[in-house]
């Protein structure tokens, strides 16, 4: 509930700055990839909500965990029921900012290196995140990309010993979002 109100507050704050340079998508793509000795597991989510406010650098994204699609039904079941417990914690949220947002020039096409800093909430655990990525400006649109690793134990996600060789303890997360200017 607290997180919810923070998000709402942030959204309200960013909406407050009139003519905000706000870019949004509802079809961002997040992929996660686990490379363990016995098995490679990958899952995709194509309905990621994300917003970037270029006047403040404020950056959020939000995913529904049940929307992650796996090749094998069994893995999807285990992911939802045993690991992220999506009935109890239906979403994962990132709330933070692009720290060097002032370097981004929306009028100038090109690929910009960015640093993203904030808090990631997953499985009821909130942790600071500081990662690098790129934002490509192309004809007034933004294409954000980032790849980072996430240690499952940090988010109190435990992998039972029996499948310890099937699931990696560190998961690679790739984020790929196309942001369009919001029509406000």
């Amino acid at each position, binding site marked *: 509930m607290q997180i919810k109100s923070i998000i709402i507050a942030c959204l309200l704050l960013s909406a407050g700055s009139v003519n905000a340079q706000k870019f949004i998508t509802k*079809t961002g793509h997040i992929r996660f990839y686990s490379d363990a000795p016995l098995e490679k597991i990958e899952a995709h989510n194509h*309905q990621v909500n994300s917003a970037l406010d270029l006047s403040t650098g404020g950056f959020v994204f939000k995913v529904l965990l*049940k929307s992650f699609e796996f090749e094998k039904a*069994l893995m999807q079941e285990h992911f939802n029921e045993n690991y992220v417990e999506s*009935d109890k914690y*239906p979403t994962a949220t990132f709330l933070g900012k692009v720290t060097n947002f002032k370097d981004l020039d929306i009028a100038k096409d090109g690929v910009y290196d960015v640093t993203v800093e904030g808090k990631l909430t997953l499985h009821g655990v909130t942790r600071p995140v500081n990662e690098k990525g790129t934002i490509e400006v192309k004809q007034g649109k933004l294409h954000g990309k980032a790849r980072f690793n996430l240690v499952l134990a940090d988010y109190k996600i435990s992998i039972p010993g029996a499948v310890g060789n099937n699931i990696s303890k560190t998961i690679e997360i790739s984020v790929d979002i196309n942001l369009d200017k*919001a029509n406000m």
Partner: protein
Amino acid sequence: MKIYSLKLVFILLIIKVIENYIHMKTWIKVVIGLFVAGLLAAFLGYTFIYNKQHPDYENAEAAFTMTAVDLYQAFKNNAANASAQYNGQVITLAGKLSKIETADSLVIAVFVFNQGDFGDEGIRCTMMKKFNDEANRLQPDGEIIVKGYCTGFNETDVILEKCSLINQ
């Protein structure tokens, strides 16, 4: 013809194996029996547990049948209750289509009920690939019936995945 004779050879072989089996000593029978049972269990486990198919959402029976606006309002009024009730369920929705959105290979039927910081808010139904063409031909403002798997509410929209269209 060739396939037929192959089948015949195979059947004869099996009969021979069974004949031999009958004349074996009991302990060998037990060992072989256990071995075969183990193989069978491994095969069944692999096929039906490890490799089990994703649910057939197109033909699944819907747990709830309702109007799109009712589902949206349920999440909007009390997200926690609605999540407990509808997340992970197959739901059939009827309503007036607002628009069809495409993103990469996705086709999404959207019911819009509200405006917020993320623009339109409502219900977003991602089509199964086989319904992409049919969904792309839908006209905004037309009444549609769509069935899909509800994955929850992300503060702006209710998301349905693996959606199929039901012809009225």
